[in-house]
């Protein structure tokens, strides 16, 4: 119908936009998959990689799952181009949780980036690393955060603060103290930018650890104005909670006004506009509400309201011990001082937070300074306007006089959203005073003409509220409303226009609210309404008017005279009414009959009987039910002839009482204190949605936090110490960097296993301080990452030259080792055996298995396993065999990809080369058999079924990572060359302790200590894995007791893929004490390598029972 208004402007702008889109990424977004993405990712050109990544991001943006590209994308993390790197980071963060194994591939690269001279690169690396959220890397990430928390660049420290909640999110209990410690350090930072982020971390990690705040309280207050806006929002809240927890509420504040001061005196004394006309009643209502508000803030409204169950306990006062006075409390004073300039902030959230502090803590006379800043916020965006209004409404409910002079600010603009309009109306009706009401009503008159009829209806309701609050003005209102009722009812066919009915209903209801206050003086109005019944067509409005007929039927002199006519009219119109109106007619009929005068009684009785008859045959069952009910109840009335006739029967008396009670009752005034008032802290989400959002916490219990000066001292001391230690270590790292030289322990980086660092802690001067431990790791990490590939070469050269300088020492060592020889040690190697079936589960059959170092004859993928069967029962066991439980050739494709592609040609080989069947095993007898197994996955056990005595028992054969490799015999030169080709992301290391040699040394006192150590380490390694020992290096300037610098190298190839895997173990510590080992692995198969690394670190720590 509005085609004539159609405009081409929109289509034109679309067309011109299409022209402009050339040269942007538009085509990537529109058709991300029009080319094959996979080859692009492997391209050698950065631009093609970039395009591929952009296409992937486009797919992510459109909600597709492209996580299958993960392995390919992760590879590109090593790219030199920062654009590619950034895009990879974006992708990685999106999917890291889904693909943890592959995400691990990137860790080393981040570690390297953490040492980049560009702070942006460091920050990105930290953010991404912490954002990956894998438990495995949490210790690494924590160490990285610890290091970045001391970074010289503010931006990096800020990112460190932001990373803390990410780590906290992983719920690693053992790291919680370390994380909180870091929060404390960052809160103490001298840069405001960092403090802001730290405040956010504090809020989300340990919002109730007030001792962290207590230490820095004054400093935090001073720095607050300079903190970034976002940090300010949270820091303000934190400081407020701290002060309440420490000192309690302020006696002079609004919150405690009921208890401390004469509330009446305050209003007059401070010149706040007080509506005298309201009298004492409304004043006490305010005080009650204020008290309710303050109780809600402290206890949370849900708890408070459910417990107090009404108004009675509102007046219960706070314990005076739990309050403080602004006069003698420095902390409160500072808080108020530092937050009040923030009322001028550009950010509405900051202003509201600051206003919240003033509202709760400021002395009564100062609360009004929040008014203008809050009103200013009404100028901000539509969305924030709404939130601000919700909060202002709470303030105004408690103290309407605050906002009363500013009523003009709540006048409505046509561009306001409907909700904002509704809130403004509520606000206006709350704060209207005798002086402002005339202007407000003039505004309202305009609003009623607004095309949005829902808004117009709300306006009419607001008029009713105003008139109720201010008894002086109803006459003006009433005339307007009556005129409206008349106009609305004449405004043609109302059904045509949406919402028109609502206005009329509201008008009638508003009139009713006004009349309710003093029905007698409004008799004429009531009569006018009754007269308009015929023209009012809207059912709800009619129902209200009809209800009024019933309520006011005995009012004054004129109405009772009209009753017969009105009732006749109602009876006449009954048939054509809506159900809701019919119900009201029935009720009204009953009421009219009860209060009928003598002369009208007979007539009315007839009419009522007629109405009841009609009602009984109504189509609506509600109406029928109501009719029957009323008929029964009124039977005594309908039976008698005179209204005042005394009933004899007592039963009828009761009925009369009931009827009187139900219908004759006078209206009770509506309680103004609405229990649906739920108050949450100003500026909170809960206040907007009106329920406690998860994580909402009311203010802490006043004075719940006891602050210990002593604590503060020692803590700050400790921190200073830590900082000085940190500065020292930073310096040292710099010097190392400059020299370009490196020590042996530069390799001992990576505190991946913090729990095993106990010894290190002992080395530190302050054993109680874990910070030292962090900085230590941080330094070594630094060195590791600063070492470029060239530096590595340099370092290797250097090392070889040093070994050349002392050939005798090395030679002696190597030659002495040669004497032991691999074969020699081989005889002492006792491979660990695992239990496949214990006698308890197997009716006396005990089966153990041991991995053999032999290479399988079937295929390179198979591992030889020796199975030892023992019969510990008293009866012979027959026909024992092991078989693959799953079908031979069926293997999950996903698992296969993990094993690698190289083995594709062996897919046809069965996963288990079965053993020769044991025909019979006598009691006490044992037998060995050899099986060859191809594991699907290097971590997942293989399901086998054991057959014996005709039974079948499922068993699980667990792979030992140490035997999924085979010895790879290379020379030391080849080893070093291979190692240099596998830097950065292909290199990972872990620390562990080693104790086996201590027993050993004691036992064989005569032997060379170094030799013993080398032997025991080698033995341990070879007993648990299938490796080739390449070389043993001895430190140059070592004393006889110090084994630091001893280095063993092993080499191997991964069975499945033939990829070389190099292991270097570096020793640190005294010969006679526990040794710290750093195990380093270089391997292209990062996931396998990492897993093996963990395996090695684990078995090195185990005290072996098989030590010589």
């Amino acid at each position, binding site marked *: *119908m509005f085609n*004539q208004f159609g*405009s081409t402007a929109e289509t034109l702008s679309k067309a011109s*936009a299409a022209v402009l889109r050339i040269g*942007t*990424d*538009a085509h990537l977004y*529109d058709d991300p998959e029009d080319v094959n993405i996979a080859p692009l990712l492997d391209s050698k050109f950065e631009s093609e990689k970039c395009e591929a990544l*952009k296409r992937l991001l486009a797919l992510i*943006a459109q909600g597709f799952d492209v996580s299958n590209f993960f392995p390919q994308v992760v590879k590109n993390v090593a790219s030199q181009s920062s654009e590619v790197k950034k895009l990879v980071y974006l992708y990685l*963060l999106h999917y890291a*949780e889904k693909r943890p194994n592959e995400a691990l591939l990137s860790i080393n690269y981040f570690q390297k980036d953490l040492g980049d001279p560009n702070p942006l690169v460091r920050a990105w690396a930290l953010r991404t690393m912490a954002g990956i959220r894998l438990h495995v890397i949490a210790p690494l990430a924590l160490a990285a955060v610890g290091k970045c928390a001391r970074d010289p660049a503010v931006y990096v420290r800020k*990112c460190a603060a*932001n990373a803390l*909640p*990410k780590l906290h*999110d992983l*719920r690693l209990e053992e790291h919680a103290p370390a994380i909180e410690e870091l929060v404390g350090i960052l809160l103490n930072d001298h840069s405001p930018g960092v403090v802001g982020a730290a405040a*956010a971390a504090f809020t*989300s990690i340990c919002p109730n650890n007030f001792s962290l705040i207590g230490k820095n309280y004054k400093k935090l207050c001073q720095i607050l*104005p300079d903190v970034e*806006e*976002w940090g300010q*929002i949270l820091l303000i809240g934190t400081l407020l909670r701290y002060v309440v927890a420490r000192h309690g509420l302020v006696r002079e504040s609004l919150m405690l006004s009921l208890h401390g001061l004469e509330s009446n005196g305050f209003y007059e004394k401070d010149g706040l506009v007080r509506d005298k006309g309201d009298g004492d009643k409304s004043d006490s209502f305010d005080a009650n509400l204020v008290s309710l508000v303050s109780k809600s803030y402290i206890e949370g409204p849900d708890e408070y309201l459910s417990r107090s169950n009404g108004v009675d306990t509102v007046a219960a006062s706070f314990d005076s011990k739990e309050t403080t006075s602004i006069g003698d409390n420095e902390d409160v004073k500072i808080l108020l001082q530092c937050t009040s*300039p923030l009322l*001028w902030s*550009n*950010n*509405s*959230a900051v202003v509201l937070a600051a206003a919240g502090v003033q509202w709760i803590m400021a002395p009564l006379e100062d609360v009004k300074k929040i008014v*203008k800043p809050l009103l*200013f916020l009404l*100028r901000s965006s539509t*969305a*924030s306007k*709404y*939130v*601000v209004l919700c909060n202002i409404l709470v303030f105004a409910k408690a103290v309407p006089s605050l906002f009363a002079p500013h009523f003009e*600010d709540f006048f409505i603009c*046509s*561009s306001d959203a*409907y*909700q904002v309009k509704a809130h403004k109306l509520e606000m206006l009706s709350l704060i209207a005073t005798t002086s402002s009401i005339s202007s407000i009503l003039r505004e309202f008159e305009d609003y009623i*003409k*607004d*095309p949005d009829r829902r808004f117009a209806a709300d306006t009419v309701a607001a008029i009713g509220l105003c008139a109720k609050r201010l008894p002086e003005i109803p006459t003006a209102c009433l005339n307007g409303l009556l005129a409206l009722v008349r106009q609305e009812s004449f405004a*043609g*066919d109302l059904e*045509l226009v*949406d919402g028109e009915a609502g206005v009329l209903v509201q008008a009638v209801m508003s009139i009713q609210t006004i009349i309710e206050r003093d029905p007698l003086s409004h008799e004429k109005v009531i009569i006018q309404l009754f007269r308009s019944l015929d023209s009012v067509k809207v059912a709800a409005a009619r129902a209200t008017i009809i209800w009024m007929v019933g309520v006011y039927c005995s009012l004054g002199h004129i109405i009772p005279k009209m009753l017969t006519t009105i009732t006749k009219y109602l009876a006449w119109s009954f048939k054509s009414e809506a159900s809701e109106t019919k119900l009201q007619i029935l009720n009204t009929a009953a009421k009219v009959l009860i209060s009928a005068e003598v002369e009208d009684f007979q007539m009315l009785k007839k009419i009522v009987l007629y109405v009841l008859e009609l009602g009984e045959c109504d189509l609506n069952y509600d109406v029928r039910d109501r009719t029957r009910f009323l008929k029964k109840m009124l039977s005594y009335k309908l039976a008698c002839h005179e209204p005042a006739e005394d009933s004899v029967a007592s039963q009828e008396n009761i009925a009369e009482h009931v009827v009187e009670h139900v219908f004759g009752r006078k209206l009770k005034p509506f309680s103004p204190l609405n229990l649906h008032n739920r108050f949450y802290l100003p*500026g*909170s*989400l*809960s206040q*907007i949605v009106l*329920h406690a*959002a*998860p*994580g909402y*916490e009311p203010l802490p219990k006043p004075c719940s936090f006891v602050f210990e000066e002593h604590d503060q001292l020692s803590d700050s001391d400790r921190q200073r110490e830590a900082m000085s230690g940190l500065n020292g270590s930073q310096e040292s790292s710099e010097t190392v960097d400059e020299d370009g030289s490196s020590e042996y322990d530069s390799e001992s980086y990576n505190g991946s296993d913090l729990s095993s660092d106990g010894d290190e802690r002992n080395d530190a001067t302050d054993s109680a301080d874990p910070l030292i431990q962090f900085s230590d790791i941080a330094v070594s990490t630094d060195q590791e990452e600063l070492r470029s590939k060239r530096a590595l070469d340099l370092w290797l050269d250097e090392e070889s030259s040093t070994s050349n300088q002392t050939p005798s020492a090395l030679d002696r060592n190597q030659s002495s080792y040669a004497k032991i020889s691999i074969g020699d040690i081989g005889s002492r190697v006792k491979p660990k055996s695992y239990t496949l079936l214990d006698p308890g589960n197997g009716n006396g059959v005990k089966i153990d298995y041991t991995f053999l170092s032999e290479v399988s004859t079937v295929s390179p993928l198979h591992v030889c396993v020796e199975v030892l069967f023992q019969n510990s029962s008293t009866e012979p066991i027959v026909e024992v065999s092991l078989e693959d439980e799953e079908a031979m050739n069926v293997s999950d494709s996903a698992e296969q990809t993990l094993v690698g592609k190289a083995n594709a040609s062996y897919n046809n080989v069965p996963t288990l080369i079965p053993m020769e069947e044991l025909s019979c095993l006598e009691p006490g007898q044992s037998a060995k058999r050899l099986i060859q197994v191809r594991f699907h996955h290097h971590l997942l056990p293989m399901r086998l079924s054991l057959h014996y005595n005709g039974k079948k028992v499922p068993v699980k054969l667990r792979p030992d990572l140490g035997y999924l490799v085979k010895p790879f015999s290379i020379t030391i030169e080849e080893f070093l060359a291979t190692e240099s080709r596998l830097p950065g992301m292909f290199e990972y290391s872990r620390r562990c302790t080693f104790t086996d040699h201590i027993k050993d040394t004691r036992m064989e006192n005569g032997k060379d200590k170094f030799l013993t150590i080398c032997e025991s380490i080698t033995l341990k390694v070879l007993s648990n894995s299938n490796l080739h020992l390449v070389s043993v290096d001895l430190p140059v300037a070592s004393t006889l007791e110090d084994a630091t610098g001893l280095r063993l190298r092993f080499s191997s190839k991964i069975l499945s893929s033939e990829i070389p895997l190099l292991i270097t173990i570096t020793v640190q510590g005294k010969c006679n004490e526990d040794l710290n080992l750093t195990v380093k692995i270089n391997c292209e198969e990062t996931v396998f390598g990492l897993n093996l690394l963990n395996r090695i670190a684990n078995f090195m720590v185990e005290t072996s029972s098989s030590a010589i």
Partner: protein
Amino acid sequence: MEEATGRRSNLPIRSEREREQYRSSMLQCIFLLSDSGEVMLEKQLTGHRVDRSICAWFWDQADSFKSLPVIASPTHYLFQIVRDGITFLACTQVEMPPLMAIEFLCRVADVLSDYLGGLNEDLVKDNFIIVYELLDEMIDNGFPLTTEPNILREMIAPPNLVSKMLSVVTGNASNIYGEVQMSSQLTGFPDLTLSFANPSVLEDMRFHPCVRFRPWESHQVLSFVPPDGQFKLMSYRVKKLKNTPLYVKPQITSDSGTCRVSVLVGIRSDPGKTIESITFSFQLPHCVSSADLSSNHGTVTILSNKTCTWTIGRIPSDKTPCLSGTLALETGLERLHVYPTFKVGFKIMGIALSGLRIEKLDLKTIPPRLYKGFRAQTRSGEFDVRL
């Protein structure tokens, strides 16, 4: 009120332990929705991934509920702002200051429209990589990271299509809302002091974070070290503007199904400079079935959504612009019972209606080749005329 309380039971998080679990992150996800409800972009911010089905739920809500800036959905709390037809939707599951989320979304919208030279569906889609990069830089783990446009500009290069607009002072009928925009290209750390000739006219103000609060409290001078580039130094409010510079006299009479409309626009009090870009718009009431409007000056367009816009430009010296014509009401309606509100827009170059005057701008260290300049401009804010 009741409705919102009832919805609470649907929220999945109940126990203390679970609460604990969700506390660590603020905003969990940001979605950009086109004007047809299509999700153009999603940016997950934390480990607690938010499924985009929430957008479909949101879009299906009834209009009055959907337009709420803060919504409690069965699974998440949603914050939204709408800018140029694009909905910025952010989700959280925990208590957090709602204004923080809203302010942040506004900031995102500002930065995006600054970077992309406007905001619309195509611009966002065409530059989605930049949008991603910006979002990634602006928020980290649900907490804002870098939001200062000047710093962002250094980190992420904008695409080559930036157009700018300078506005200095905007006015409103009874209140004046004003802004002091500042564009600074000074090297080093210039320490500036700006003083006003008549600071007392300022009713209330807001400052850019670079402004120091103390000097303002004691002497009403603005002391600050400006960031490079353009920024909003302060915004303020001046009360009780006596007269608007324009008058608008609308007349609507209706009888037997048709309505006669005539609107006169003229200059009430000459501000001393030309009033430019005068526009006049109003929404035709629903009950109008067709309209025939014309003017003696400027152009009149009526869009399909019943918005009538009259572009006047400058007021000619020889005649008073007048819009006149008839509206036909829908059948059955005799007379118009609702009246539209007329919105008026205008601009005055070279003058601030508030009367606020800048006295001087001092620099502590004076660099060579210094250029200082002021420009004032008045633009109408919310100028509503009712019948």
